[in-house]
């Protein structure tokens, strides 16, 4: 008989040495003449115990971590293949509090299944959503998605079913489904984990979207910084192509432009052009890729669809708070003790995530600032940590949940420097189409440099510049750079050399 050993192939586990651990396990097993089958699963998303090795014992798994190659001989000595006790033993993975307290829906199979095995996907609940959708009319599918309350998980939070209905109702001989997998936000990795850990789920979501709107083909636009995601998706397309029932998927590799995560710039990029933002209207749902009606959804949005179809909209809608229905896979990142993926229903507070899950700063110092929602998200201070995690609740404090990425900073952070970085990033990544973003970001860096050099009288000028960028930019790149800049200024004025900020009036 052969023992089953799970060692993640997720990029984060690889970066922590998972391949070397797999080699060590294989070599040790060979030396001991023990038959082991090494299965490369995704990651459960608890990065402080990665590489986390799991063994199958009877009908459950036992986890060990963090495992380094040097630990492997002692694991064999401790009979870890049958779940033997060892200093690194974590028990059953699903009983680890960090996981036990979550509601994994969109990422339910990530870390559990072999992402290259279609059989594994099907035997763990995959495929049911598409099977049910095939028995439904497009109107029924769209109705189900609307009723589920699912909103775009990429950050804009637009109701997914409403977007689908627009594409469905627009007559055209050709329509497209595009998955936006250009996960460029720092602090975000849920798309990456899904693509590497459960790629069939994304393809199933796309095929269901195709049935709903009448599209026969689609693209997944993946960042070039994610080669492992690209490989996992290509392998999944090769294996499951036929099962998708005539729905063709092409994996498109992006080329390092952050702004291509903006949906119209993404369309230009797939068309083979520079990723320059288009003015809206027309909406992509009416005139998108090659001028055809196009659904553009984020990875997590599409990966949530199979479950909604398989188990009904109610099962999804019952999670959440207010108009934020379902779950969001939050990503705890930066200076945080227990960083990782936390999929929970909307409704917890930021503080619960940062402390109950995250355990505070990894450095052991107090948390001072937390950026939620990527480079275009606001910096929040301690006084705002009790905000409920919901789209409207965050909008209410001038912030955004975005894609659910949360980057924690301890009290050594210099917020003027972070504000400067936000402007510099905008200058680096601006597509150049509109003036407020292209020029404003460069001027913004200069103004912050002067403020940091002691010219606090320039603060009102920075505020005016942010206002121009907010209202004058074509897309969120320039339009939301003011979020991190102004929130840093408002919540941490002492870092800008001014204890008394003069607001909008001139000093």
């Amino acid at each position, binding site marked *: 008989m052969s023992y089953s050993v799970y060692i993640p192939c997720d990029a984060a586990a690889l970066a922590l040495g998972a391949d070397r651990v797999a080699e060590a396990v294989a070599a040790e097993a060979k030396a001991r003449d023990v038959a082991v089958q090494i299965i490369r699963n995704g990651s459960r998303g608890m990065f402080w115990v990665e590489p986390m090795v799991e063994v199958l014992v009877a009908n459950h798994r036992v986890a060990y971590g963090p495992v380094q190659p040097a630990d492997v001989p002692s694991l064999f000595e401790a009979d870890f293949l049958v779940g033997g006790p060892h200093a690194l033993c974590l028990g059953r993975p699903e009983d680890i509090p960090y996981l036990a307290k979550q509601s994994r829906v969109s990422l339910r199979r990530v870390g559990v299944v072999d992402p290259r095995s279609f059989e594994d996907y099907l035997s763990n609940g995959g495929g049911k959503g598409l099977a049910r959708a095939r028995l439904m009319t497009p109107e029924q599918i769209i109705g189900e998605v609307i009723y589920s309350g699912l909103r775009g998980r990429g950050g804009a939070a637009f109701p997914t079913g409403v977007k689908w209905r627009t594409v469905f109702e627009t007559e055209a001989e050709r329509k497209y489904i595009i998955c936006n997998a250009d996960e*460029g936000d720092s602090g*975000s990795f849920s798309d990456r984990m899904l693509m590497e850990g459960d790629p069939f789920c994304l393809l199933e979501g796309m095929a269901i979207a195709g049935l709903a709107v009448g599209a026969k083909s689609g693209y997944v636009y993946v960042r070039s910084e994610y080669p492992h995601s690209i490989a996992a998706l290509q392998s999944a397309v090769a294996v499951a192509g036929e099962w998708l029932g005539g729905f063709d998927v092409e994996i498109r590799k992006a080329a*390092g432009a952050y702004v291509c995560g903006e949906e119209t710039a993404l369309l230009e990029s797939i068309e*083979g052009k520079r*990723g320059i933002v288009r003015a809206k209207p027309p909406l992509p749902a009416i005139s998108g890729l*090659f001028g055809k009606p196009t659904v553009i959804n984020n990875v997590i949005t599409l990966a949530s669809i199979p479950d909604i179809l398989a188990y009904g909209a109610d099962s999804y809608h019952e999670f959440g708070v207010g108009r934020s229905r379902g779950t969001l896979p939050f990503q705890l990142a*930066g200076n945080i003790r227990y960083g990782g993926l936390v999929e929970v229903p909307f409704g917890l507070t930021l503080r619960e995530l940062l402390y109950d899950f995250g355990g505070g700063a990894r450095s052991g110092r107090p948390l001072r600032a937390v950026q939620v929602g990527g*480079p275009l998200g606001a910096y929040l201070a301690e006084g705002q940590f009790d905000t409920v995690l919901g789209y409207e609740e965050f909008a209410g404090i001038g912030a955004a949940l975005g894609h659910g*990425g949360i980057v924690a900073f301890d009290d050594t952070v210099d917020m003027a420097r*972070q504000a400067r970085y936000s402007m510099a990033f905008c200058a680096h990544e601006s597509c150049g189409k509109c003036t407020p973003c292209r020029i404003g970001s460069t001027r913004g860096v200069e103004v912050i440099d002067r403020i940091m050099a002691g010219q606090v009288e320039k603060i009102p000028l920075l505020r005016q510049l942010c206002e121009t960028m907010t209202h004058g930019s074509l897309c969120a790149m320039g339009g939301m750079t003011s979020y991190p800049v102004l929130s840093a200024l408002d919540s941490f004025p002492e870092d800008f050399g001014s204890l008394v900020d003069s607001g909008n009036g001139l000093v």
Partner: protein
Amino acid sequence: MIPDELIDRVRSILNSHHHQAGALLPVLHDVQAEFNYVPSEAVSEIANTLKLSRAEVHGVLTYYHHFRQTPPGKHVVRVCRAEACQAQGGDALVAHAERRLAQSSLTLEPVYCLGLCAIGPSIQIDEINLHAQVTPGKFDALIADLEGTP
């Protein structure tokens, strides 16, 4: 490499994308995978085949950070500059990397997020090899391996 051979290889890549709509990015990716950069001789060939102007191809080539127009060093080392890595000592690693690779046969490039945001600072070597929680000491050891010196 003799120019004819280069053009032949570019043509073969172009042929493999014959039926693809909006093929320019996939073609540039394949050309860069073949030569480690996009040679200027390839631009006219790509433009002719895809029925674009050379300016259009040049515009795309220079717009995207991923593409390069000159050959890189022996290896490409990308250090993440984004916020989550900054929160974990990324700026100090960047400064160290710039000093360490100032006189090196390796190419140092910035990258804005590798999706390893809870285990930073992170680096990527030659696109596929990832390393997390990189301290200056760990960085030097990795670089020494790449440079083939102790």
